[in-house]
């Protein structure tokens, strides 16, 4: 490995404004989104347990709320995954590359 474990370089980088920006961009997207999809999923599970009358309401032919709600969990999962990959490629990757280059320069 070419990188030495020079902790002062890492601490300096961690304290830098640019790194704090990267950290903020990552956390301010990933953390609220995690809370949101977990809440959305729990709502679904709780309704499946405690609101079966509502979940059994037929919407179209034999297709009921429970089925639509379930399929919506798939849709939201796909959408969040796609949105995260967009966010990461646009907002995180370029900054991460730049900072990595900076640290590697100092530790080599």
């Amino acid at each position: 490995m070419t990188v030495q474990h020079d902790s002062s370089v890492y601490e300096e980088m961690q304290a830098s404004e640019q790194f704090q920006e990267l950290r903020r961009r990552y956390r301010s997207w990933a953390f609220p989104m995690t809370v949101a999809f977990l809440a959305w999923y729990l709502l679904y599970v709780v309704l499946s347990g405690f609101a079966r009358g509502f979940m059994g309401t037929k919407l179209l032919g034999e297709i009921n709320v429970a089925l639509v709600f379930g399929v919506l969990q798939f849709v939201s999962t796909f959408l969040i995954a796609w949105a995260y990959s967009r966010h990461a490629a646009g907002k995180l990757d370029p900054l991460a590359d730049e900072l990595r280059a900076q640290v590697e320069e100092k530790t080599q």
Partner: protein
Amino acid sequence: MKHETLATILFLVFVAGTLAITFWASRNTKTATDYYAGGRSFSGVQNGLAIGGDYMSAASFLGIAGIIALSGYDGFLYSIGFLVAWLVALLLVAELMRNSGKFTMADVLAFRMSPRPVRTAAGVSTIVVSIFYLLAQMVGAGALVGLLLGITSQSGKVWTIIAVGLLMVIYVVIGGMKGTTWVQIVKAVMLMTGAALVTLLVLGKFGFNLSSLLGDAATQSGKGDAFLNAGLKYGTEAQGVWGKIDLISLGLALVLGTAGLPHILIRFYTVPTARDARKSVLWGIGIIGVFYLLTLVLGFGAAAVVGSEKIAAANAAGNTAAPQLAEAIGADIFGEVGGTILLAVIAAVAFATILAVVAGLTLASSSSFAHDLYAHVFKRGQVTDKEEVRVARIAAFVIGAIAIALAIPAQSLNVAFLVALAFAVAASGNLPAILYSLFWKRFNTAGAVSAIYGGLISALVLVILSPAVSGAKTAMFPDVDFHLIELSNPGIFSIPIGFLCGYLGTIFSKEYNAAKYAEIEVRSLTGVGMEKASEH
């Protein structure tokens, strides 16, 4: 030709093909990085398929289709938890782990903590989770073969378990991560193709009208509209409030467990960069999501075409619903020969599924034994690459032998809850330790050790005292009764306990290493100093 013969031939072709790949992979498996992480040279798409292969176990293919065929909507509830769980892995774990770890889950924890206690805890938890999961799959294999190949004798089932065990050990010992990953890829493609084919035939039969399929399923099940709603299997009205809390508890373990399963976590190390890890999870989510939508059609299709009564008669848990559906729909459209062929194909796919998943589990547990316990705890890191890999191979052999030895007497026991238990332990012990160590500055050795043991022990104790083990007709030991709680799934208690133990352990210990946290944070977010792919 009988379907048993054809299924056996197809399965042997799969075994021969994957063994050839394994031997080919072994030529390029020299270093520890090759053995543990496939040289980190898989592409995001390849690893995404392998993630699907590792994750879509026989329990989720045959099991979920079976639950839907017998109890309707409840099986779908299971698959949703399994899918949503991948967002935790994508958003919080995959990339950061790839950037800061090396071969096992413990690498990330040991980074800024006292390595020996942390690696011991993580190694124990990895091996416990993997063996539970492994056992459930092996017992399933024995039962399945009995049904699909017409092997009904007890010795036939025992030999099946031994054969599955030996094959998985061969894949792992010879092919390492590279061989195992290719087995997963081949299996994932076979499984998706097989499931998609039967799904298309089912939808075609109902003129691509989902409503009419659901209507027929509800009628044929004999349960009517209730079949299309939650509550026939999990949290039934008869079980009252505790049953419903149990359902929520199961849901929590499923959604939080995936990102703590050792055989899933080591998948992130097989790609060259964190971005490939991201890409592989994205592909994994796509494949797994589509697969579960297919199982929805398969399950309701089986109820509609075969009928719940006939499915329950073949296997009380409905595990043969998908193969039975393949036979019926094939015969319906292509005549009897078509039914035989389609049944044989799906049966062979089911074996491939079991075999691939058990290989992944054996690899994860033997890697953790060799890398965490042997190399870093027993030998304090004073060990060569070559010796570590040798120990990993021996460990794979021993774990295989243990799994066979446990699976044979466990055949008559109901071990279905073991998969849910593995998820609960992963969610209660491993996930808190991983998340705290990636995101919490103050986290330390005492915290990591308390989180893992606290989560692991509370989940185990709660299950031992639950109706899944004693005091119920469906329990593991139905004749005795020492159950104290009404929940079969411990997650709703054990997950908060794991997080709480991690928190308390941390604040009661003064240890805190700011420099190391700076390093892991910078490394995990930027990829500085990450482990590179090996060059061949």
